[in-house]
């Protein structure tokens, strides 16, 4: 029955997109979570929204922009936003989360203005807000593949430096790790991941795949390596189960994927709690 699905190109595309995003989102997410920056993903996704809106506006008003996928502009905006985030974070070292409301509201504000300037769009902007993985085309798939390649390479090459920076930024700097450069590259990579994953889960849910699988693994892992591995496993389960469930139940795919990851998270909590109770009873 499942083999049947692979006959459709759109289903193959959706699966490929899901697997790629389910790999890079949690990997980047681990660093965001342990550095207490998870909300920054949300801020950047809203900046991406304004980029997408700008792209749609261009498409509407200028014929030559027809070929330009709004996601590209979304990506450009997201990267620019990430540079701002890093600047703000440096300016307010002791309360870095101040960057979040500033960037987030700025992104939404600009997005809303652009949408209103276009008197609303014919294109369904909901596809960007909530994801439309079943409509992922060849071009977008290619974009995701390129972004995934870049992200994986970055994380692989700088695994040890990123770990040291996340654990203790001052000490990492002291041992000669180029703090500024890596922080900058990292936030740009986050921006790329967000723009690439918008099609899968949507702007409003982008941070979910970055944080919920990580939150689930943090319940039981000891080491950083384990946390990375389990986060990817949970994200893959969420994406695959979510996709099939969405297809058979005719639910929104982005929402379903997020709900599945929350179910995984709750299951882990439950298992942990019952193991704890079980052990206590054995001792008591």
């Amino acid at each position, binding site marked *: 029955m499942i083999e049947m699905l692979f006959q459709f190109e759109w289903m193959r595309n959706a699966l490929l997109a899901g697997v790629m995003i389910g790999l890079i989102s949690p990997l980047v997410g681990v660093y965001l979570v342990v550095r207490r920056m998870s909300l920054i993903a949300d801020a950047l996704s809203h900046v991406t929204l304004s980029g997408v809106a700008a792209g749609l506006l261009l498409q509407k008003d200028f014929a030559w922009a027809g070929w330009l996928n709004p996601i590209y502009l979304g990506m450009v905006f997201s990267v620019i936003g990430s540079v701002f985030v890093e600047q703000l974070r440096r300016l307010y070292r002791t309360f870095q989360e101040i960057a979040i409301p500033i960037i987030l509201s700025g992104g939404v504000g600009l997005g809303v203005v652009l949408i209103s300037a276009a008197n609303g769009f014919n294109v369904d902007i909901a596809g960007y807000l909530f994801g439309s993985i079943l409509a992922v085309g060849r071009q977008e798939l290619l974009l995701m593949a390129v972004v995934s390649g870049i992200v994986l390479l970055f994380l692989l090459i700088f695994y040890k430096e990123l770990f040291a920076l996340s654990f*203790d930024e001052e000490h990492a700097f002291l041992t000669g790790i180029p703090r500024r450069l890596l922080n900058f590259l990292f936030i740009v990579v986050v921006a790329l991941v967000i723009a690439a994953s918008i099609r899968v889960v949507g702007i409003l849910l982008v941070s979910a795949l970055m944080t919920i699988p990580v939150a689930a693994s943090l319940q039981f*892992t000891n*080491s950083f390596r384990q946390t990375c591995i389990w986060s990817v496993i949970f994200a893959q389960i969420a994406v695959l189960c979510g996709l099939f469930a969405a297809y058979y139940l005719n639910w929104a795919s982005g929402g379903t994927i997020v709900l599945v990851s929350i179910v995984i998270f709750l299951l882990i909590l439950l298992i942990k709690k019952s193991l704890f109770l079980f052990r206590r009873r054995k001792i008591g």
Partner: protein
Amino acid sequence: MRENVVEIKNLHYSYEEQAVLDGIDLTVKQGEFLGIVGPNGSGKSTLVKCILGLLKPQAGEVLLFGQPVRTLGERSRIGYVSQKSNSFNSGFPATVREVVASGLYGSLGLFRRMKKQDWEKVEEVIDQVGLSAFRDQNIGKLSGGQQQRAFIARALVSDPRLLVLDEPTVGIDAKSTAQFYDLLAVLHREEGLTLLMVTHDLSVLSSHVDRVACLNKRLTFHGRPDEFERKQTEILSATYGHEIQLVSHGH
């Protein structure tokens, strides 16, 4: 003549308007164990951060191994355990082994991976600080004193020639403190490591260090421990102020 590992010349530092360090001159020779004491807020941690190049002084100069600290290339020659090491995010998913290994990452350099002998070195320092049983334990689930030892291991793993410790024994029980000083003594005597330690524990001065520096915005004393013992009352009142009556530890 032994090499000057740390050389501080006429150092001034102030946060915004408040002057914290005012004309410090201090030299630490190779193989020396310097203890720095002084009341809370006297600028000890600030001095340490200036020495390490974490803070940029408004005036004066800091030389490490004869080079200005800000241009010092070989960062691995310095090990540092900061006063607030223990204030890391205690939910952080990392084992003792991972944390200790991170002390090597800077000196390994970009694009290089940990090799077999690097991991062996990690195991060796974990044994040295007595955490063998906890190497795969999550760092947040250790006791405060055990965490402190892990941070000392992280500082030692890159084979530093200068070890800087800012109140390393705060929150550590008496037995572990004694073990810790024994470890420092081994590193100091047998491996010739240069040590710089900020402490509030005056009793350790007579028994372990070669030089004492008393700090309160300026250096109020710098000399041998026996000299310090002899003139203790004057030095302490100059450092800590006249009103405070200090209970003298030790002998």
